[in-house]
């Protein structure tokens, strides 16, 4: 039945129908029916907003358990740069990577360097691109999915460069299989993810290709064990550890980080889906044509604000910011060689295999005339509703409810404001029925009348 893979699951036993998720969903993809929340797959973009607000922890991100590691002969962890923001100032990437190896991974790979390469590749793409602007970063899979579902017209403005996690997994598999004389499928690459969306981008890439990653483990799951593994590690030189950090790459952890570290002039950074919707509406109207590049993250402040992180988002955001400032101040340039990147860029090394395709929502009807008629009905139903968006019907807003009714997914009487009216009509019909002479034939036709009328009212 399900055409789309989603990384979010609702545990019906835990769900108490509190409707927090209903109100927070940016694409109105949740309905509460019979006291239980359910996701409309077509509309869900896996942003994870519902996971964060659920008071019963009934909405679960589908990440991989640690046990998955045993399926492979060689395992490599690729932590999101957001992981680096989860620890204190003294614990720098070098140390974190060595800590990860103690947890059972054969290797840990610093994605920041690949992020740096991709930053340069984006710069190259911006330079040679001639189509409508602004171009949109594909770092956040929720943003890519939002464009596919809600802004299909902007699909060609998403930069078709592989995100760092994919690129790194692709290259590392090649390299390790040669080095260790193993088959590529025996090498497991695991992304340490700050959010559930990256999981679907692995199970079902937006461009319909195949992911080079084999799984994702949430930062919140790995945080505790990692913290204990880090205990007692030797305190190395701070300055020396700094020298290995790619400033371009660290920027990927926070909103605005790519723009800032690349020093892009006509760029814009936006985070949080509510603000993204506003900005994308503007792009669609052709209002932001003078902007070259948009960095957008569904989580506030970027990946450091992911729902599977541990540290307070403002603290981790600030940590990354301070790290960038320190690297800028110390003029540390542990970045990839731009000439090398240009060479690889020319060889199409950075581009995604497939193509981003739009995923527009199903219209009210396939037939244009019928769709127009249904849209009119929707408006008429909406006019009859109380317009207070109480959510008691299970839909997030009155207008969404009107649409559900027109699509046949809800009944008008699901609206509690329609119930008294319904009772009134029914009781009137009953009293009329009682007043009629109690002849056998009449009772029969009377009963028929009710069911007919009742149906017509729907």
């Amino acid at each position, binding site marked *: 039945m399900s055409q789309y893979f989603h990384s979010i699951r609702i545990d019906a036993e835990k769900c108490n129908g509190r409707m927090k998720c209903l109100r927070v969903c940016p694409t109105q993809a949740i309905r509460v029916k019979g006291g239980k929340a359910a996701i409309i797959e077509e509309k869900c973009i896996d942003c994870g907003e519902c996971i964060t607000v659920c008071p019963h922890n009934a909405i679960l991100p589908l990440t991989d358990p640690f046990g998955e590691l045993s399926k492979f002969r060689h395992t490599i962890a690729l932590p999101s740069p957001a992981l680096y923001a989860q620890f204190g100032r003294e614990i720098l990437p070098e140390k974190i990577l060595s800590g990860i190896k103690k947890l059972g991974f054969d290797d840990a790979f610093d994605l920041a360097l690949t992020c740096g390469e991709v930053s340069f590749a984006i710069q190259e793409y911006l330079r040679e691109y001639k189509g409508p602007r602004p171009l949109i970063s594909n770092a956040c899979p929720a943003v890519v999915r939002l464009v596919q579902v809600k802004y*299909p*017209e902007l699909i060609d403005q998403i930069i078709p460069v592989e995100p760092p996690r994919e690129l790194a997994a692709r290259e590392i598999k090649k390299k390790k299989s040669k080095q260790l004389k193993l088959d590529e499928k025996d090498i497991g690459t695991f992304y340490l993810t700050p959010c559930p969306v990256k999981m679907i981008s692995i199970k079902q890439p937006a461009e319909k290709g195949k992911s080079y990653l084999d799984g994702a483990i949430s930062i919140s799951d790995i945080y505790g064990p990692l913290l204990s593994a880090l205990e007692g590690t030797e305190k190395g030189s701070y300055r020396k550890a700094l020298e290995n950090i790619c400033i371009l790459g660290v920027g990927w952890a926070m909103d605005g980080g790519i723009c800032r570290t690349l020093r892009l002039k006509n760029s814009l950074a936006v985070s949080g889906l509510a603000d993204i919707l506003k900005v994308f*509406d*503007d792009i*669609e*109207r*052709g*209002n932001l044509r*003078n902007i070259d590049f948009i960095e957008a993250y569904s989580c506030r402040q970027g990946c450091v604000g992911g729902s599977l992180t541990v540290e307070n988002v403002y603290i981790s955001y600030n940590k990354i910011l301070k790290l960038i400032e320190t690297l800028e101040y110390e003029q540390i340039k542990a970045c990839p060689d731009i000439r090398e990147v240009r060479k690889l860029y020319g060889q199409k090394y950075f581009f995604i295999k497939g193509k981003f395709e*739009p995923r*527009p*929502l199903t*219209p*009210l*009807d*396939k037939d*244009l*005339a019928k*769709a*127009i*008629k249904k*849209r*009119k009905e*929707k*408006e008429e139903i909406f006019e009859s509703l109380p317009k207070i968006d109480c959510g008691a019907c299970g839909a997030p807003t009155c207008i969404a409810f009107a*649409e559900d009714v027109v699509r046949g997914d809800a009944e008008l009487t699901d609206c509690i404001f329609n119930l008294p009216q319904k009772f009134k009509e029914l009781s009137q019909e009953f009293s009329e029925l009682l007043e009629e002479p109690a002849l056998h034939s009449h009772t029969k036709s009377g009963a028929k009348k009710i069911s007919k009328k009742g149906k017509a009212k729907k």
Partner: protein
Amino acid sequence: MMSSENEFSQRFEITGGDFSNAGRTSTSIKEILKEIGIDSSIIIRASIASYEAEMNVVMYAQRGVLTLNITPEKLHLRLEDEGSGIENIGLAMQEGFSTATDEMREMGFGAGMGLPNIKKNADKFEISSTPGKGTSLDIIFCLNKTERK
């Protein structure tokens, strides 16, 4: 407002000078077109045209009404505004001509592309204006595949 069965109409009121709500009408129109399942290339053109028309009211008129009318054959946007009107339509239709103030230009408007842009995106475009009274625009998109631009 709503006449025949296969016809959908909706009226949107636009207030002159209300920059904080500017763009709402064209966003609502876009949503309606998507729900009905209008071809996405037409949605892009109609969104741009309705936004330019809306912004013309916000910038130059006191108030205006944009009426959306959809039948299986065509999509019709009619805009009627009360305002200063246009003295010389020929001039207003030229790319680059604008009477926008410096403030408007600072906000990124007033490049003199509004009306020409509407005309460029529409399949049929008509404009009439009475100086001192107001302007009306008829912007039409053919939904019938053969008649399309």
